[in-house]
């Protein structure tokens, strides 16, 4: 899958879960609007019909319902592609608060079916070997995508940046090896610290990695600085996916995409939208300013 080419536009899922980096009010009204999975599917259908067929999503429980819909109608969704990002961090953070660090890990290890999982996990816990635990957690999160196309699997930024800060680079290698072997997928890494992460992935021996980071004209949430990011785009070998290109609405759409178009080596842009009009206008802008 290392030759898999990502689409230029990927559709994100923040809007479906009441995540908005600008306004709590807006976040709540979106949470209300997307309470029912039909409303989510309407927007995903609109994106799909605009030719935006890749859905970059978390492993929130509600995504399982989206996966079920897609699985149930292979005719309608023959090109529908998931880029799952894991873990869904709040789930784990709340579990750590409730059960402590080890208790949380135990709680999310798959319970049923996999005797081999118990052995893998049990032995890993005893040997203080994280490989078994990491691979089990990945498998638990991937269950909802069974039978669906998942050519890229992301590690979410809270985990990537935690591991990065701790210097736990071996976890990146373990994650990459597992998603390649077991899911025939390319590993992707989401980060808020792009230049620092690239060094770490280099050290882990991961060549030309897929990395998703905030990349926007105003440097919003780009740790390492705007210039550091631009230097990385120019000089480092990696496959960049830009998120937060509009900086949560702080940059007007045309200006934001014009700037992205000027940056070298950005393979994809992930964006979120709640209406067909907004999806179409973003696609038209990208078609115009970044023709492929």
């Amino acid at each position, binding site marked *: 899958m290392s030759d898999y080419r990502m689409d230029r536009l990927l559709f994100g899922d923040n809007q479906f879960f009441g995540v908005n980096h600008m306004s709590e009010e807006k976040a709540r009204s979106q949470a209300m609007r997307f309470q029912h999975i039909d409303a989510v599917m309407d927007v995903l259908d609109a994106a799909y019909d605009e030719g935006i067929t890749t859905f970059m999503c978390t492993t929130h429980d509600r995504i399982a319902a989206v996966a079920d819909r897609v699985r149930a109608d292979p005719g309608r969704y023959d090109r529908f592609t998931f880029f799952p990002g894991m873990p869904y961090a709040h789930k784990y953070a709340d579990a750590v608060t409730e059960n*402590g660090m080890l208790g949380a890990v135990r709680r999310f290890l798959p319970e049923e079916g996999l005797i081999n999982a118990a052995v893998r996990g049990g032995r890993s816990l005893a040997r203080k070997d994280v490989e078994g635990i990491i691979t089990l957690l990945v498998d638990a999160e991937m269950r909802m995508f069974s039978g669906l196309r998942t050519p890229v699997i992301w590690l979410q930024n809270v985990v990537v940046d935690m591991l990065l800060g701790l210097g736990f680079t071996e976890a990146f290698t373990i994650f990459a090896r597992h998603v390649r072997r077991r899911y025939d997928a390319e590993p992707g890494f989401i980060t808020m610290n792009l230049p620092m992460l690239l060094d770490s992935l280099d050290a882990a021996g991961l060549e030309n990695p897929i990395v998703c980071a905030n990349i926007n004209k105003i440097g919003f949430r780009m740790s390492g*600085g705007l210039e550091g990011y631009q230097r990385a785009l120019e000089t480092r070998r990696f496959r960049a996916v830009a998120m937060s290109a509009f900086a949560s609405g702080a940059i007007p759409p045309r200006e934001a995409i014009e700037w992205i178009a000027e940056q070298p080596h950005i393979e994809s842009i992930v964006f979120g939208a709640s209406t067909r009009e907004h999806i179409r206008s973003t696609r038209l802008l990208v078609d115009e300013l970044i023709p492929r």
Partner: protein
Amino acid sequence: MISVGVVGLGKMGMSHLAMIQAHPDVRVGAVVDTTGYVLDVLEKYTGLPTFRDVDAALAKVELDALIIATPTRLHAPMVRQALEHGLGVFCEKPLCMSAADSAGLAGLARQRGLVTQVGYHNRFVGAFREVKRLLDAGAIGRVTHLAAEAYGPVVLRAKGSTWRSRREEGGGALYDYAAHPLDLLTWYAGAPNAVGGTVLGSVFSADTEDEVYSTLYYPDGSHAQLSVNWSDESYRKMTTMITISGTAGRIHADRQEVQLYRRDTAPELPGYERGWTVKYTTELTDPVWFYLRGEEYSAQLDHFVQRVARGDTAGTNTFDSAALTDRALELLTLDAAKGPSTRDEAAAAPDATRRGSRRQRA
């Protein structure tokens, strides 16, 4: 370059460790936790120097400062030990479960000229800093009332196996959650001289409270209300809000934005019109060297590191400041224990003709 130790590898400790380890001016000299398992995994994969207790770390390693993120009940002795060892201390909030302990530690640090800080990260949120700046500039005239709220989905069922579900260890919505909005009140309005009507209510927890409601009174005649519920699933994550009313306008802020309404009587203020002005986090937030879970967490650690490097005992969230918040937490506990202050005696009388029997016990 300063050498820092981190004690306690729970949720906060682990995240502090990741951020501080990435800081260009810091060398992590020791990581301390009593859970051997987590410690061993960390040592095996990161090579960080690990210790099972603070004594062992202090005996072996030369440190400049200690970050303490253990359960609250362990703070006081550990902070004292670090101060007596001459270290700067960053301690997770709240500082101590007894306001006397907090004041004592603040005094000890002052006497020894040591840098101290407590993890009230909201004071490093761009929007909340802007509120402070606006108040200092008199942007809404004389402040009459403040409302501080926090809601989130922390305890949603009647179980839980960590110290956070036990009040005697500093668990519970008052010390673990309400401390944050309460500290913002301390920042904006100072120390209260009275509190009333405090309710520490349980929604699900058996051994501690899940809700905190109270009225606070300040020496200048202003007052505040605190409203906290950590068993509210309608919030995706902890949401802290501040609303401040004044003679010349009103401020509403959360971590994303500041909404300010200013009357014609409000003083001139660059960047703010009369009527509504809204500022978003994108323009209120300074960049950080490393981002893990919000700029404020990085910014507070950087503030501490810079102060330790300079030996600067003044700054944001010193023990002196946190001791005021700890005292307010204590006042709330005392007030809640008293129960309601005004009862309807007529309703309580045996021949009451009104609503029947008392429905609520203190």
